[in-house]
């Protein structure tokens, strides 16, 4: 017997939005973006789209995207950035955990407050990775890596707009 749908009306806004295809596609694009040949200042300021996509989908599709994927993508980024294996993974897992805990609260907010939350989570991810590298003998990496969370957070609003738009379109099409 199927359980009754106890979903309150407000949950509708939080419902997993879209097909698996969009999720996979967004991660591929994010990985491509992160793998571009960045160097120098551009590298220091590179917005981490993989992290952003992780946060977005763990907020909007918590059934599909969670800490396991965060761990796997973190390992992939560690290899492609030739860093210590597990460094990005720890940061991504920590940020995804934060997103899962804060999920309902973040989704109730508008764009500005959401951006601030993302800034916090991205800072957690970066700081965790930098600290892990430091403990592994890399020394203090300086303050420069803490610039990237700002650019990452700045990309949140455009990314949300883009990723949420197909869903809006489908909904409008479904109503009549």
């Amino acid at each position, binding site marked *: 017997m199927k359980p009754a749908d106890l979903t309150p009306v407000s949950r509708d806004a939080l419902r997993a939005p879209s097909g698996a295809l969009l999720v996979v596609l967004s991660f591929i694009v994010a990985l491509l973006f992160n793998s571009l040949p960045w160097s120098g200042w551009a590298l220091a300021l590179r917005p981490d789209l993989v992290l952003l996509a992780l946060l977005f989908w763990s907020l909007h599709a918590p059934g599909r995207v969670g*800490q396991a994927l965060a*761990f796997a993508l973190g390992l992939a980024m560690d290899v492609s950035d*030739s860093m210590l294996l*597990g460094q990005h993974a720890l940061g991504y*897992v*920590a940020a995804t955990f934060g997103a899962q805990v804060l999920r309902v609260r973040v989704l109730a907010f508008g764009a500005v407050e959401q951006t601030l939350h993302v800034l916090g989570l991205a800072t957690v991810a970066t700081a965790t990775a930098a600290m892990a590298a430091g403990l592994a003998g890399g020394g203090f990496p300086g303050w420069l890596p803490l610039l990237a969370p700002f650019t990452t957070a700045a990309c949140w609003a455009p990314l949300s707009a883009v990723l949420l738009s197909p869903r809006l379109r489908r909904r409008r099409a479904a109503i009549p």
Partner: protein
Amino acid sequence: MGEAPAFFHRGPSPLARFAFFGLLSVAAMIADHRFGLLDTARVGISAAMLPIQTAALAPATVAEVVGDRFTDQASLLRENEELRERLLAYAAAAQEAQLLRAENERLLGLAAAPVDQPGTIARIVSTGRNPFARKVLLDKGVTHGLQPGMPVVDVDGVIGQVTGVGALGSEATLITEKGQLVPVMMVRNGLRAVVEGAGAAGRLNLPHIPASADVREGDLFVTSGIDGVYPPGLAVARVTVVDRNVDSMFARISALPASGVSNHRYVRVLTATPTPAAPEPAASARREPARPGRAPGRPTAPRKP
């Protein structure tokens, strides 16, 4: 609790998951850092990432090809002129080297000289995306016969060493990376030393040389071949500053790399299998069979006119 509707059933709590994956990450880091256990995993993941990385590099490659097409005549002529001058310089150096080598062979009875190492030309694909490590990514991997430990050189000397190998690409650590060591010997008086990467600004250090040692600015250090990784005689570093402080037993010696560590797009990986220094008979026996095979297959020999 087992009667809860499926809607509420979500597996372990986020906190439990976080504990699990967090510990897994930490374990991976420890395994990678302390024990170097995850090299196979790294190779596998990098193979899986290869399509994405190739795609990400495609715009740059296209831009490069198009740029090459439209190089103007003046710059080509200039480059030609420059190359001709270099060729002359190397021709002179090669003749001198041949004389020296003949003398060396006569004196030491050595079977081969360092420049006769078999090697393969690799392109520097990217300079690595970790701003805190001096590494470059090359476009040759296991399938081209590369192995960890192989020396990477350019026409002027040693650049670094292959440290990670994937299926179709590999990672070389430059000699300027912090803690990267190369055993060397001074050309002028045979003083043996170790060159250590300083980690910053393409500088090298020569630690543990007594303050009384005969080292001057401009002295050239070449590989000594003692470690069995780098063949002897490759230029490594030129001394820039010698600081003899009274309150230290050792001189503080800084040097610059002899090779263009950060200047090149093409490098040569010496593919002679790196082995620990072996006793003389074994060493000559190992070199012998390598000789006939390398003559036709050798890509280039920039030192020979």
